[in-house]
Structure formats: C-alpha cells, structure tokens
C-alpha cells in the first residue's frame, strides 16, 4: 500500500495536505495527533468516506472499517451482523455464510456470542465483533478509528491481542488512536499528524531522536506517548 501526496479539503480549509506513507502487508500503522489534527479525516479518506485528491496511490479496494462505537447493527445478532454483507453483497448461500462466520468468530474468540445482540455484549466483545465482521469480507486493509477509546482499560488488551494475531494474515492495519500503550505494543510505524500534515513517520523505537525536529509544543504532546 502506497499513498503519495494525499490532499483533502473539508469546507474551505485544507484538512489534510501532502500526506504520503507506505505500508507492507502485515504491518500496523498508528496515527496519533491532537483532536482536530486531521488524523480521523485521513482514515475516512482512505475508506472513501470523504472526498480527497492524491498524486499517486496503490491501495486495495478491499477495506474494512472499525469505528469507535456503534459499529454493530443493534437490531441484528452477531451472526446476522456478520452474515448480512456476505449474503446481500457477496451473494453467499446460508451454508457458505455460516462457514465464514464460524471462521471469523473463532479468530476473534467470540463463538460464545454468536447469537447475542450487541446490547448484551461487552464493549470489547462488540469491537471484536466489528473486527470479525470486517474480516468476513477478506479485506487487505482494516482501518480502525480509535477502536479502544470507548472501552474500559481492562478490555483494551483483548482488542490488541486480536490485532496482533491478524498481523500473521498479512492484513495491513491502520489505526488512529489516543492510546499511548498502542504505539509501543502494536505499531510497526507511528505517524504524527498535526495541522493536517504528517509531521513525522517512523518506527516506534526511532521516535526519540526525531522529536528534536518538532516544535516545542508538538514535542510536549508527543512526549506523553514515549
């Protein structure tokens, strides 16, 4: 996956300017930045939810998206949530769909929630359910918009565990987050976005020396993460 010079206007302002990055299969990219910095907008552009222009991009069209909350459809149980697109979009038979549902539920360890409705599942289970639903369509990329910020701290790890396991399947995972543990624990690359620009992009371990290039204000913010 390769993005070169992505620009996005929202209203009259530049929401994003000249964002470029590259990701290899199996990598997890984390984007951090203050509220309003444009990091969520970047994710929405990649998902096709916002209009954008780009100099050059190599990107799979098979994308999954996991929102911060309200991911699962509340009127359907978990199995139906996952099966809906399989049947309606991919025109799979009931039996084919069931096999896939089994497979993805095993991956996210949610077999026991198969017939549960979202309101009867914990926040962590709901997020894992949303990941399972994204996985069912066999995406090359999964985009996460603050997937753990609505969760209690003890539930955060169960989501990260799943994400780390998915690395093995060569899926590219791009995460926008506020969670400082995420950077060290799961990221292969960390991007820092401020005022619509990608100020820094590197491996988590290489962050410290690079901090010197940033303004004091930006450094102060990022030091919270290191």
């Amino acid at each position, binding site marked *: 996956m390769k993005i070169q010079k992505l620009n996005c206007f929202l209203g009259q302002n530049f929401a994003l300017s000249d964002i470029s990055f590259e990701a290899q299969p199996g990598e997890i990219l984390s984007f951090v930045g203050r509220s309003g910095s444009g990091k969520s907008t970047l994710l929405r552009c990649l998902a096709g939810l916002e209009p954008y222009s780009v100099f050059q991009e190599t990107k799979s069209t098979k994308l*999954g998206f996991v929102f911060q*909350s309200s991911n699962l*459809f509340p*009127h359907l149980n978990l199995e139906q949530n996952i099966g*809906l697109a399989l049947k*309606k979009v991919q025109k799979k038979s009931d039996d084919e769909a069931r096999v896939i549902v089994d497979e993805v539920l095993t991956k996210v360890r949610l077999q026991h929630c198969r017939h549960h409705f979202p309101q009867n599942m914990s926040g962590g289970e709901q997020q894992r359910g949303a990941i399972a639903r994204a996985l069912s*369509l066999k995406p090359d990329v999964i985009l996460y918009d603050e997937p753990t910020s609505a969760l209690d701290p003890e539930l955060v790890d169960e989501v990260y565990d799943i994400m780390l396991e998915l690395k093995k399947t060569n899926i590219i995972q791009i995460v926008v987050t506020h969670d400082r543990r995420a950077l060290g624990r799961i990221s292969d690359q960390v991007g820092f976005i401020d005022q619509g620009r990608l100020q820094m992009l590197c491996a988590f371990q290489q962050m410290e020396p690079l901090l010197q290039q940033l303004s004091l204000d930006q450094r102060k913010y990022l030091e919270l993460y290191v």
Partner: protein
Amino acid sequence: MFKFFMILFLFSGFASAESLRWAADTESGAPYVFYDAESLVMTGFEFDLVQALSQKMNREPRFVQNAWDGLILGLNNNLYDVAINGIEITEDRKKSVYFSEPYYATHVKIITKQGDTRFKKLSDLPSFKIGTLGGALSERILRSEEGVKIVTYESEALAHQDLLLGRTDAIFLDAPIAKYYSEVDKRFQIVPTEIGAMTYGIAISKKNPELLKSVNRALSDLINSGELKTIYEKWGLWNAATASLFGDTTLNRLKPTSFDKYKSHLNNDRSWKDKFEIYQKVGPLFLKAAWQTIKISFLAMIVAVVLGLLIVGLRLYGPRPLQYLTTGFVELIRGTPLLLQLFFIFYALPGIGIEIPALWAAIMTLGINYSVQESEIYRSGLTNIHKNQIEAAYMLGLTKWQTFWSIQLPQAIKLCLGPMTTDFIALIKDSSLVSVITLVELTKTYSLLSSTYYEYFGFAILTATLYLLIGMPLVILSRKLEQKLIK
C-alpha cells in the same frame, strides 16, 4: 324485523334514478324529522310532508342523512335533490339555492326553567346567558339585541340540558322545537310572547329549476286540498301564521295524534325492562355504526401508512424540488384543521369537477391528514439512527437501498411502533368528524340515538366501550410486535 331493515336501509342513504332524494339531519330532529323512540322508524311532520309531496310528484322518496350545517352544501353538490329540515327562507340562502313556496310559518319563543319569571319579552334578555341553535333566525335576533351573552348549540336536547344545569339563564328557539322539547317537560315553561317571523321552504339546487316548478305545483296541491293542514294538525303545529300563509282560516279540526304519541314515549322514569328493550333495539344500530367507524379508520390507516412512506421517501431521498414540494405539503396539511379539509374535499372539489363519494372522501381526507403525521414519525425514526451505522453499511458494500431496507427501516419500525399506535388511536377518534359529510358513524349514531331516547349516560358508556374495543387490537398488536423486536 322489517323495521330494522328499514332503518338500516335509511341509514345507508341509498339513492336511485327515479327517486326523490331528500336530506335532513335527524339528530334531535323532533318534530321535523326524527326516529320514533318506540319503533325506531323515521317520522316527523316534514317526513310526512315528504311522503305526501313525493306521492303527488310520483316519485320514490329516498332519505339522505346529513349534518344540518352541510345541508345546503350537499344540495349544490348533487348529493340529493331537496333539503327539507326547518330551513328558514332568507335572502342570503336564496343566493345559493332555490326555495319552494313557504310550507310553514312560525316564530321564536323564550323558554325558561319552571317558575322563572324574569323573562317576558325580548328586551328582558340582555345581560343574560341565552342558549340557541346556531345558524337559525333565533340566533340572528339575539345578535341584534345588544348585551345578550349567546351560547349556540347544535342540538336542541343539549340546549335544554344546559338550561337545567344552570349553564344558561334561558333558551331561545323556534316554536315547533319549543313545543316538542319544552312544553312536554314539566321542568320547563314557554313564555307566550311570539318573537320574530319566519317561513320554512324546501331548498333545491339552482341547477334544477324544473324540480322547483314541480315541487311548487305539488306543494300548492297539498295546501289547497288541505292535506298539509291535516299533517300540521296531527303534529299539533297548526298555527295562525301558517293559516294566514295558506289563506285558510278554518279552525283546528283534528286531534294532535302524532304529538300525543310522541309525548307518550317521553317517559323519563323507565323501568329496567324498558331500558333493556331499548338497548336491544339500538344494539344493531350501534354495531353497524361501529363497523362504519372501523371501515373508515382502518382504510384511512392504510392510506396514511402508504402515503406517509412515500412522503418520507421523497423528503429524505428525493430530488431537491420534490423535497421542497413534500415539505410544503406536510406543512400545509399539518397546519390546517381536519374538519376544513373534509369540507374542502367533499364540498369544494366538486366545484372543479372532482366528485368523490362520501365514504372515499372520508377515507382519503383522514388518510392524507394522518399520512403527514405518520411521515414525521417515520422521519424521526429513520434519522435517529447513528451515522456510524450508515457508514458501516457503506464500508460493508451495501447499496443505499440495501442499507435503507436492512439497517434503517427495521430499526425505524421499532422506534415508530409506539408513536404509530398513538397516532392510529387518534385517527379512530378523529373519524367521528366525518359526520359532516353525510356519513353516520359511531359518534353520530350516539348523538342521534341519545337525543331520541334521552339516554345520554348509558349510550355514552356503550359508545366509549365500542371505541375502546376498536382500538384494542391495535394496542395488543403493537405490544406484541414491540416485544418481538426487542427480544
């Protein structure tokens, strides 16, 4: 048994080619046109007049029930040929309809509670609360008298009721009404002074000058042969004014048999057995009326749901111009009274060539009126869904239509069930308004029959029970569905 079929038949307001379709309001209609309390057969001096008249004209009388206020409107829309219901000949009315030669002359009387001597003449009325019937000469006289606090009623029975309850100080009514409602009841007294003068005429559409001629010919036959006088004598209504109108100065010859019969049925202390018989008699009429209410409301609900979905679809997903158009439509319908809409559809549209039968006009109007409220309910249901879900559906590759059908609609239905039930119950109750366009449904039947039997309390409970029973299945259904959806 035959009598029941007669009444059912009359209630249906059937009309055919060779008939003389005549209209009146039978609600507290004595002595004009009303239902005999004993037999529940239609009667009244105007009923007798119509029978004699159509015999002379060699036509078959067919009755059409309409609310009094709508009588002239219906005439202009060819719902019936003539309206005969104590309609006073006035210059204003003459502008919109033809009137036959007058068939009765009378005046207005003051009625007080027994023993009340405050009121002797018109000039005693100012500064008091006086009840009268809306749209009648009596009301106009009161309006010309400064300082009178006028209370208008649609039913003479209720005007009397309120006088007894002290809500008015006196009532002011046409002499025939006074005779049949006040004279027969010891609790009232009629002040002898005769006030004003008026004549009743048969109203005929201006499109029908031929009919006017033949009605006048038949009427003059009835006057000259003394047949009309006989009718008035039987009903105890022959008076000096009518005598001079007819140029007939002969004295009263006959006993008022019809009046006596009417009086004998006005027994206020009925035994339980009498009451039981009355309820047996009116039962089928109430059931038939309930069926009419069910028919109108449930068909209107279907219209409301289908149209409501269409409106919300256009408003949320239609092209811009249609969005503006439907928004305007919603505001127009929501901002105007249902009663006005009924009048418009049934009485105004025929003016531009659109004639809709009463039943369908009622269903359409109620349906359209409620479709607007339904569409608002759906709109709030559809737009209350979290934005993430629409985007999640998009990311899963669902089309807009699939998203609407599988994600938005099921959740909206759940949100809408409660408000929809409330809305439908309101519709059932609002269906009572359709009596203004000749339809006889539950509430109209209640007022017709309660004023025939003076059985306000019991019939009210019966009517209320029927309304509750009609709404009950809806409530149960929506509870069941809600439980199923929540699970």
